[in-house]
């Protein structure tokens, strides 16, 4: 997991954002002729050399938003700026076509051209760009260079139909890299290969981004991938950005139950807000009164949930100290390698807890969660 969280854009100085979206909206007409917003008023910025990950379940509008940046989709509302240039403005009916936006994209299906060799596929962006068309030798040099970069120098004469999925993926990546654009869009590029290859490619992709310094907007529905790659994550829900921040912030301080549940595992204890005080809040639950970090939008007397991560709970046979503790029944324990996963039952609520060793043998146990590690959010 990435430990260094980049600071917020507002604290960075100098360079303009490489992408700036304001109020982007895209409607689709459903079969029953009602309008549905695939993207519902999204505003965000991407800094140079940043990887912004759009994370959300399938159908939440990630692809539509990405294609709106690319110019492959015409939004109904809003503006798109790339590297300081307005490339789309619904109000002024301005819409620069994709080939005029100076960015690259890697598609989920790779979209390699089956009638061209790997070399020709990769050389295509160089041959197609207006203005700076390189000479024959320079072109060949650049193609060979990226082929080596993605680790398939020997495949240049092959055709896409003759290669494995992993190799096709590398060709697609090479084609996205070859023009050396400052912005590359990725639409779930890693979703079609098996887990091992995916992990390796993730590392390589990150190393390549560090080395070449491009900015990326990366779409995925895989939270692990999002955490590992992202400088910042935008968690999307039904066409809107629910929370935008560095991975650690998204994980440790999710703004809503939806984000907490989508990123990582969240144990929820429902209750009612008993009091709020500065940074902390208390909530009355079936486990008694719990104290934790106060989320936004809490009102005394209103419904709330206390949320904790499996790795933040402590399990003991004797009653622990501290404010948040309750008795639970251990139903099952499973060895998962790095940790042991315990499935617990307490007051009719089930929860999961990870511990390092098999120190507890009893079935009736105590659970304790540090108030720093318990998050109180509106229900």
């Amino acid at each position, binding site marked *: 997991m990435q430990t260094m969280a980049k600071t917020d854009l507002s604290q960075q100085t100098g360079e303009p954002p490489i992408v700036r979206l304001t109020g982007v909206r895209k409607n689709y007409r459903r079969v029953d002729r009602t309008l549905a917003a695939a993207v519902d008023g999204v505003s965000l910025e991407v800094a140079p050399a940043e990887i912004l990950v759009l994370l959300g379940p399938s159908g939440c509008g990630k692809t539509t938003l990405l*294609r709106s940046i*690319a*110019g*492959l989709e015409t939004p109904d509302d809003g503006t798109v700026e790339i590297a300081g240039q307005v490339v789309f403005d619904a109000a*002024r*009916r*301005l*819409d*620069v*076509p*994709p*080939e005029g936006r*100076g*960015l*690259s*994209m890697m*598609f*989920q*299906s790779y*979209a*390699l*051209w*089956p*009638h061209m060799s790997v070399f020709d596929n990769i050389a*295509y*962006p160089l041959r*197609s*760009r*207006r203005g700076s068309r390189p000479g024959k030798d320079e072109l060949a040099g650049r193609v060979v260079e990226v082929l080596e970069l993605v680790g398939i120098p020997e495949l240049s004469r092959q*055709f*896409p*139909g*003759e290669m494995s999925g992993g190799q096709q993926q590398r060709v697609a990546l090479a*084609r996205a890299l070859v*023009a050396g654009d400052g912005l590359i869009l990725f639409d779930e590029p890693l979703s079609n290969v098996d887990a091992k290859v995916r992990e390796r490619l993730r590392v390589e992709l990150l190393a390549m981004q560090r080395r070449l310094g491009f900015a990326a907007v990366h779409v995925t529905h895989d939270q692990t991938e999002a955490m590992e790659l992202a400088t910042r994550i935008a968690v999307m829900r039904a066409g809107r950005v629910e929370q935008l921040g560095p991975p650690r912030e998204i994980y440790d301080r999710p703004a809503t139950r939806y984000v907490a549940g989508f990123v990582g595992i969240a144990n929820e204890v429902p209750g009612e807000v008993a009091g709020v005080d500065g940074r902390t809040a208390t909530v009355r639950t079936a486990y008694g009164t719990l104290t934790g970090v106060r989320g936004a939008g809490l009102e005394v007397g209103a419904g709330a949930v206390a949320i904790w991560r499996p790795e933040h709970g402590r399990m003991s046979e004797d009653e622990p100290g501290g404010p948040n503790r309750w008795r639970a029944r251990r139903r099952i324990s499973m060895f998962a390698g790095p940790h042991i996963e315990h499935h617990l039952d307490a007051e009719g609520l089930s929860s999961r807890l990870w511990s390092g060793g098999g120190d507890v043998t009893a079935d009736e146990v105590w659970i304790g969660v540090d108030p720093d590690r318990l998050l109180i959010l509106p229900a």
Partner: protein
Amino acid sequence: MTALTRVRDRLGALTPFQVAGTLLALALGALAVYPLALVVIRPFVTDGRIDLAPIRDMLAQPDLVTLLWHTAAVVGASGLAGLVIGSSLAWVNERTDARMGLLTDVVPLVPFLLPPIAGAIGWSLLGSERSGYLNLALRPLLGIEGTGPVDVHSWYGIIFVYTIYQVPYVFMIVSAGLRNTDPALEEQSRMSGAGPLRTLRRISLPAVRPSMGAAALLMVWTGFGLFSIPAILAPQAGLDILSVRVVQLLSFTYPPETGVAVALNLVVMLVVTLVWYAQTRMLRSTRTAGIGGKGARPRPMRLGRWRTPVRAAIVLYLALTSVLPLGALVLVSLTGFWSNTVDWSRLNLDAVVRTLTDTATQEALLNSLVLGVVCATVGVLAAAVVSVLVRRSGRGAGMLVDAAIKFPPTLSHLVIAVGFVLAFSGAPFHLGGTLWILMLAYISLHMPQATTASDAAISQVAPELTDASRISGAGQSRTFRRITLPLMTPGLLAGWALLFVTIAGDIGASAILAGTGNEVVGFRILEVFANGDYAMLGAISIILTLATSLVVLPVTWYARRRGGSPLSRTQP
């Protein structure tokens, strides 16, 4: 941003490619609609007022019900038979171990190579009650005297010959559909415990339903338009067929009853519209998830003990539909005339030599082949551009242009040919009696087939492939040239072959637009037929078939080899 770029941006989507493509589409639309308007509207307007007399006259035709009933029965029955035979051949060839390489690949298309008039004459030579070659051969075997046993001048005879000409459409379209259906779907069904028949019924058939719908539409189109087959076979069978009646009204009635002919054609147009509507509805309701695009030919299904009978049936069908009529034509041209007995010792090449040295025939052959190549190329390329634009613009304007290009030719080619005479032969174009008027008419008349082929071809190109090109910095024109067009090539080549064959052997439009100054094969055949010179007729048909085969077979073979899913280049 300068004012100029702002203006350009305001025009928004109109790139040079779109401007050129739209103009092309409009020109094609105009080429289809203008002559049609002349010939269709004129009878309905007298002294600047709408006059429905032609409709009244049509309804007053004493035998209208018989005429419609006979036509509908022949087109309907042959269409159904064509659908069953064509899809079965396609399925056997694509999915089972009864396929026989090039034989089952290409030969079902052979009837295409034999112009319908040659086919009809061939069948007349074979199946005439009294002196048909087939009857001459069968009578001694069966111990029959006098006439029979078969009679091609009959209900079943006409439906049979129509069917032969319908099967290739179904075969081509359904084969393409099957090739693009992910075989994994079928394998999954077999794994789930379903037998071959159940798999066919529940998985394969639904997957190719859109293809079968398209084939049905094409068959209704061509079925009503077929003229030479009923012209030769129907009268003696006592059948009234609409296309024959239209020609009578246009050419053998004085003054020509254009109004009634047009009104009759409006009935056909109505039927075609209904079928088209049903087909679009079906397309919309079908979830075609089948296009997996893996391009792998599935392991053929084992037919077991059925394999040999199935193969035998295929060979028999191929022999019946291709070898027999061709053989009859060869025989008649070698004997020099058609008679009740064949003197095998006196076969000679006189008729062939006479045909090859006949200057009118030479000129007609050359003109037809050149027109075929030129019109097929122009038509298919134009259709490709239009298909791409229509796909991009979706519904609305795109559909309208599409309909303008596709619909007019559903009327009888003869009626439209009259429209072309009205539109282009006089001032200001003065194209009457030239190859140009033939070229315009051929292109316009065959746009439905061309756009049907190119629509199918474009639907095989995944949208991401063109998106990726745009992202790479290529504009629309470059994307079309470098990505879309090459990927559409297999489908377009198949369409090209179809256009080439039908144009080179065209009879309908040629009957009205060609003459001694712009002789083409179809017209020449009619002239020779009028003289009753069967030997020369056989020779011309065979030479034409050989010439077109030499062009079409390599193209078709290449297209089918390259074919399948353009998403994959390799075919095991």
